[in-house]
């Protein structure tokens, strides 16, 4: 099993990691016992994602997908962000090993959860 350079880059130098105090949207998916948990924090103005942060407990692939997907939704409209698929995330990373494809679902789900949280509070 071998990761692409892009995966390794996002894993070693994750973008947008951390937390946002009092986020407009917050999502958390996964469970510690499955070996993966991901949190997304969103700062949203007029339905545009102005800031995003994540924290991830998981393998390199989970961390890299978290990182790149925050880049992919930054400055995007929430409806656009909702359309982000795990496939697109994996492609942006130049692919993931087959056994690791499921890790990329986590990012997609966490973003959806965070946007739903924002919508429900609106």
């Amino acid at each position, binding site marked *: *099993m071998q*990761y692409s350079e892009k995966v*390794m880059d996002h*894993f*070693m130098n*994750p973008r947008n*990691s*951390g*937390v946002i105090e009092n986020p407009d949207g917050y999502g*958390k998916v996964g469970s*510690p*016992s499955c*070996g*993966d*948990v*991901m*949190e997304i924090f969103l700062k949203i103005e007029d339905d545009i994602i102005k800031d995003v942060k*994540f*924290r*991830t*407990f*998981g*393998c*390199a692939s*989970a*961390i890299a997908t978290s990182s790149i997907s925050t880049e992919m939704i930054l400055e995007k409209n929430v409806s656009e962000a909702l359309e982000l698929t795990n496939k697109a995330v994996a492609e942006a990373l130049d692919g993931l090993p087959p*056994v690791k494809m499921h890790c990329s679902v986590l990012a997609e789900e966490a973003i959806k959860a965070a946007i739903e949280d924002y919508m429900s509070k609106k």
Partner: protein
Amino acid sequence: MKVYLDNNATTKVDEKVLEAMLPYFGEVYGNPSSMHGFGQESNKAMEEARKTIADILGVEASELVFTASGTESDNMAIRGVARAYKRRGNHIITSCIEHPAVRNTCKDLEKEGYEVTYLSVDENGLVDLEELKAAIKRETILITVMHANNEIGTIQPIEEIAKIANEKKIVFHTDAVQSAGKLKLKPKEMGIDLLTISGHKFYGPKGMGLLYIKQGTRLGKVITGGGQERKRRPGTSDVPGIVGMATALKAAVAHQEEECKRLSELRDYFEEELLKKVPEIVINAKGAPRLPGTSSVTFKYLEGESILLSLNYKGIAVSSGSACSSDELQASHVLLGIGIPVEFAHGTIRFSLGKYNTKEEIDYVLAELPPIIERLRMISPLWGEFVNK
């Protein structure tokens, strides 16, 4: 700096071992089963290697069978007894922390109608002799408990297990893949009927295994073919591999005591310093007799692969769980077996030291590891929750 701390997965072949093997590729290349001079020369080398190992183990050369791996030896022993003693019973006792070569073979035999008891272990990975005694039935034909565990290093009380097995006239097999060249291994004194060794764990070649079969122990066949190895294991003998394994074992036992002491000290130093430098970690099986160079560390609130790859980035090779299960994404059955909660099991790293590791290397790891753990914990939601509590 490159630091190899995965010696329980496999080891570098010792230069002297390779040197001993070299003539048997292109010079003395005959088939040891052949009657002519080319074959007899190979055969002589093979039988000398067998004698070397027999002397080290204190057994007869005729009681040793060369195989192609520890896995094959384990299969030969377990399936072999299962088949040969089928009429006497169908019950096998093993521990819940065996290597997949034993564990999955037992699981497979369950499908064939054998009944298997998986003994539990305590938090140090030790089986309970009372539980073992209670598990024995009239149908029990085999007890197979490993000598030293590959993931956490726990050394089982196999002499006592052997005693219990011998009293009940049950065949006793032990997987000594991790202990060969490191711990005392005298099957006769220790009451062992079947014993598995693999060449590549003590600076010998990969693809070489050995099974000690105490004279008189019946074994059904796993693989059939020609008459090699006194008809017990067919296939053209891998002469260089055989010579290499014998040379490696001899070298390992020659320096066994000093090397064990050195490794234990290095490992203890590593663990003590790590405990000082990194909070919220657990050294697994610390309370049990352990293999000298094995250190299993659980880094709470983290996932093993991310630690492994970050260390790898710094040239440091370790393993999360055992190498064989790295394609599987489940938490290790060994770590769960000693009672580590699943979420912490995922954050466990095995550092396995070997004869080529130095104090400088350990110091390098001790310098590189803490910032990695800190960085990864900074982005771990579980760590966030923990510090906020």
